[in-house]
């Protein structure tokens, strides 16, 4: 809904051709998935577990500042690995083809207060299907922010930089609340819906276990280091939350990323669906370590095109996808993390204030596609 539709130059045939080319990229990866990919995820999981064990071990002595620093850093990284490269990707079913019940989307549980089951629904089913469709994809602004000029402004939005910051600090709780659709479900009538109550109880149980582990059991085990371990775990969770929130903001919020109207996805073809994913996502550029620490969500565009391909393959896929962007003269939005984070935050601030309706209204995308 920006002033100029960046896909207006494509004909319907071109869009379908683009879809076929993307399908071919996907098929190639699937045909070549194998032993080394399986070895990769096993290695990452084992490394994460060892790192967490060692860090927790070091934190038993966190009363000594160097141990505190080392343990907190290690635990932060371990938690980030658990959520990003491991949890997020396994829960997408990226590793289901291995048929290993221990590394499978239906059995995995992550170090996060949102139970896997609920997150899979809101993330895999809703967000990935309706990417950036206003009113359908709740990831857009998480229901608390205004993310597009065309959305109606309300004085509530003045506070959105603050909401966004708080959400970043307590991101895992934000996600859990969001998976429960708390905003919508807290209304009197829905609150008593047995299905909602069961899900809320599941979240409660998960929170209890997580909090007990991080803020009671491990500190207690540390004895004299009780308080410093408590602070360390809190810090690690905070670091993890800020990091994941930043990475995720970069996926769909930077300037230039398109959002779509509800009507525009009616009767969408495969090619159009792909195109929407391409225009609705943005990448982060950087080193291998950067890609790893973002769980390869730095390849957000590729991830949105192929959410179930193993994450370790996105880098090679990205080269081909980028070539397609060039071929079809589309803008591949990417940049280093600080730049993308700044861009996303800038938008949050900008849209917290009212704006004039854009002068040029684009014709509705649907009409355009029909006309093409």
């Amino acid at each position, binding site marked *: 809904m920006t002033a100029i539709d960046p896909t207006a130059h494509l004909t319907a045939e071109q869009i379908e051709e683009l879809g076929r080319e993307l399908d071919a990229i996907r098929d190639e990866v699937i045909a070549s998935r*194998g032993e*080394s990919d399986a070895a990769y995820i096993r290695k990452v999981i084992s490394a994460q*577990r060892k790192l967490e064990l060692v860090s927790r071990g070091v934190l038993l002595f966190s009363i000594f500042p160097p141990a505190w620093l080392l343990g907190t850093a290690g635990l932060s990284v371990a938690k980030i690995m658990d959520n990003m490269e491991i949890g997020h990707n396994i829960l997408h*079913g990226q590793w289901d083809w*291995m*048929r290993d019940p221990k590394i499978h989307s*239906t059995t995995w549980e992550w170090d996060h207060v949102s139970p896997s089951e609920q997150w899979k629904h809101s993330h895999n089913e809703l967000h990935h299907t309706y990417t950036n469709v206003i009113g359908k994809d709740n990831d857009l602004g998480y229901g608390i922010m205004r993310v597009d000029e065309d959305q109606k402004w309300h004085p509530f939005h003045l506070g959105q930089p603050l909401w966004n910051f708080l959400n970043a600090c307590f991101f895992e709780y934000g996600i859990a609340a969001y998976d429960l659709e708390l905003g919508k479900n807290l209304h009197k009538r829905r609150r008593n819906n047995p299905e909602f109550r069961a899900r809320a109880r599941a979240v409660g149980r998960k929170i209890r276990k997580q909090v007990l*582990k991080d803020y009671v059991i491990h500190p207690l085990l540390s004895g004299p280091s009780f308080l410093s371990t408590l602070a360390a775990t809190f810090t690690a969770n905070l670091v993890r939350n800020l990091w994941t929130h930043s990475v995720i903001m970069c996926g769909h919020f930077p300037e230039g990323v398109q959002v779509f109207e509800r009507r525009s996805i009616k009767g969408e073809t495969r090619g159009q669906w792909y195109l929407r994913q391409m225009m609705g996502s943005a990448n982060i550029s950087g080193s291998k370590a950067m890609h790893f620490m973002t769980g390869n969500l730095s390849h957000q565009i590729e991830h949105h095109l192929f959410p179930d391909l193993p994450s370790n393959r996105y880098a090679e896929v990205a080269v081909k996808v980028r070539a397609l962007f060039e071929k079809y003269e589309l803008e591949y939005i990417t940049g280093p993390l600080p730049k993308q984070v700044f861009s996303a935050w800038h938008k949050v601030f900008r849209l917290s204030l009212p704006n004039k309706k854009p002068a040029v209204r684009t014709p509705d995308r649907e009409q355009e596609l029909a006309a093409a």
Partner: protein
Amino acid sequence: MTNVALRGRAWKLLEMVTTPLLPSDYLDLVSPLRAGADLRGRIEAVHPETDDAATVVIRPGRGWRGHTAGQYVRIGVDIDGVRLWRAYSITSPTSRRDGRLTITVKAIPDGKVSNHLVRRAKPGTLIQLDQPTGDFVLPPAKPAKVLFLTAGSGITPVMGMLRDTEFDDVVMVHCAPKPHDVIFRDELLGLDADKKLRLTEVHTDTDGKLDIARLDELVPDWAERETWACGPAGLLDAAEEYWTGHGVPARLHTERFRPAVVVTGDGGEVTFSTTGRTVDADGATPLLDIGEEAGVLMPSGCRMGICFGCVTPLKAGAVRDLRTGEITEAEPGVLIQTCVSAAAGPCDIER
């Protein structure tokens, strides 16, 4: 408080420490074969037997309960990153001192697992194991006269019995294309030379397929013997008919390695409701394969209808048993074996 209760509490506490993982997830990193772990084994050696058969020596985890001669074990092997389960007869005697077990595998054309085990498996590899099962075993009291009727890799469960028990009077009729295709040939000839076994080899490349009526000439007293037969379906079908025809069906014990697919029918749309996946299935492909292709986590074992490692609730619709053609319709509590059932119209499988 008793020791057990104490240990239970300690474990509960440990689970709180490791949540959302389990303590075993960490212990598996260092000691995958320990007591209390999911049952696994480590391949320690692979010895070639013939051009296309090899014996795999496996050190089982501490939870291994031991087998009875003639039984088989399900193993899960990761091939090209994908875990595949198959069942193989155990060929080692139950008394093996070092606690290892062996399976002997014949590579079948296009057989992913068998070819991998025979040609590529490396010592040191971890595999998944199940406890041994199967009722192709000897009775508690050793029968006076025994006949083993085997073909190809059908010899493997019988070898487990021969190595385990000293028989007073045992005859073996074994079929293989050529002499050098006979698995365990040296050992069998040795037993024969020591008069511990009377061996008759049928070389099908030169002699043709065994005509079951030739038994009268090869083993004149076959009808008085307790017989264990294992081999391809054709041989077993013929044997069953022959034994029944002579009024001694109870003396024949058979074990089949492949299901005999007889009836296929209409396929349909299959929903795996737990996973939320829906795919089209034809009427000939087992639902196990359909589910695995769709990325659904399907338990399995022998893949031929004998181990019940694949049973799953059928929530709606109908399926056909590929061996008999029998149709099973969904009802509360109905379980199906996905490895020998295909869609008979749309159906809903709880996976």
